[in-house]
């Protein structure tokens, strides 16, 4: 019997937390949410946990997201790291590269210069080999992800190359620019914290 999680009306990151908990118990669940962001976050959580994900959009505006664990293994994120003899810190360095943009300026001192440096930094990210797995934007960093941002073209290219871009929803909301997001996805502290914690290396310009 498939378990149904009703997460309608719940604020982020509740739907994701409920989904994660349910997946610890069940192999197959359906999560019901009532907004795009929650649906997207639940879908991502599912994919990360190694589920096949299938979304139905209902006429009443809700999303029914069916998650079922793929046979033959759980997600990389869920798998227990590793054989005996490895130290925690050496495991950690095997994780992905995550770039954390906590401001729309790079460094402290002069704001105009700091903004120029940040634009250059983001442009240069494209030349990294391999590219980072994820870029996280929070605080005034989210201003770089919205329409009219000077680095939008670069961020779109980075995204096309397969890098995931997470923009802090609280921050977009704080600056009143939630509806202007032009790349990446609206994320929450739950995702941001777990992505940062799972990183092998973090670059914080």
């Amino acid at each position, binding site marked *: 019997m498939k378990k149904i999680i009703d997460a309608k009306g719940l604020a982020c990151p509740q739907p994701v937390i409920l989904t994660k908990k349910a997946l610890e118990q069940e192999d197959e669940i359906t999560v019901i949410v009532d907004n795009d962001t929650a649906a997207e976050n639940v879908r991502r959580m599912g994919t990360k946990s190694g589920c096949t994900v299938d979304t139905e959009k209902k006429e009443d505006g809700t999303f029914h997201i069916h998650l079922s664990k793929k046979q033959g293994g759980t997600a990389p994120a869920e798998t227990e790291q590793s054989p005996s003899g490895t130290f925690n810190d050496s495991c950690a360095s095997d994780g992905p590269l995550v770039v954390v943009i906590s401001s729309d300026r790079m460094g402290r001192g002069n704001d*105009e210069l700091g903004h*120029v440096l940040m*634009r*250059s930094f983001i*442009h*240069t990210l494209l030349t990294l080999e391999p590219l980072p797995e994820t870029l996280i934007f929070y605080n005034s960093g989210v201003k770089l992800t919205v329409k009219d941002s*000077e680095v939008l073209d670069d961020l779109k290219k980075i995204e096309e190359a397969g890098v995931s871009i997470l923009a802090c929803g609280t921050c977009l909301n704080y600056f009143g620019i939630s509806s202007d997001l032009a790349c990446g996805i609206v994320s929450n502290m739950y995702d941001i914290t777990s992505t940062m914690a799972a990183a092998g290396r973090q670059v914080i310009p």
Partner: protein
Amino acid sequence: MTDKEVYYVVLFNSVHHALRSEKILKEMGISHKLIPVPRHISSDCGVCLRFTADLRSPIEEALTGKVEIREICPL
């Protein structure tokens, strides 16, 4: 780089000149992009303005006499 577009860059002797040029081009609505000076051009930690080949003369016109330019060269 996979871009097929042909680009040029304007190089400056000072970051301030680059910023002033950017302001001028923004006001005139000429599309351009502030990027770090590519390594093969200079190892300085500088910025330059990149633009597509077709905009060369409008950009030269817009900046001449207003900002000190070091060089315009193909990317």
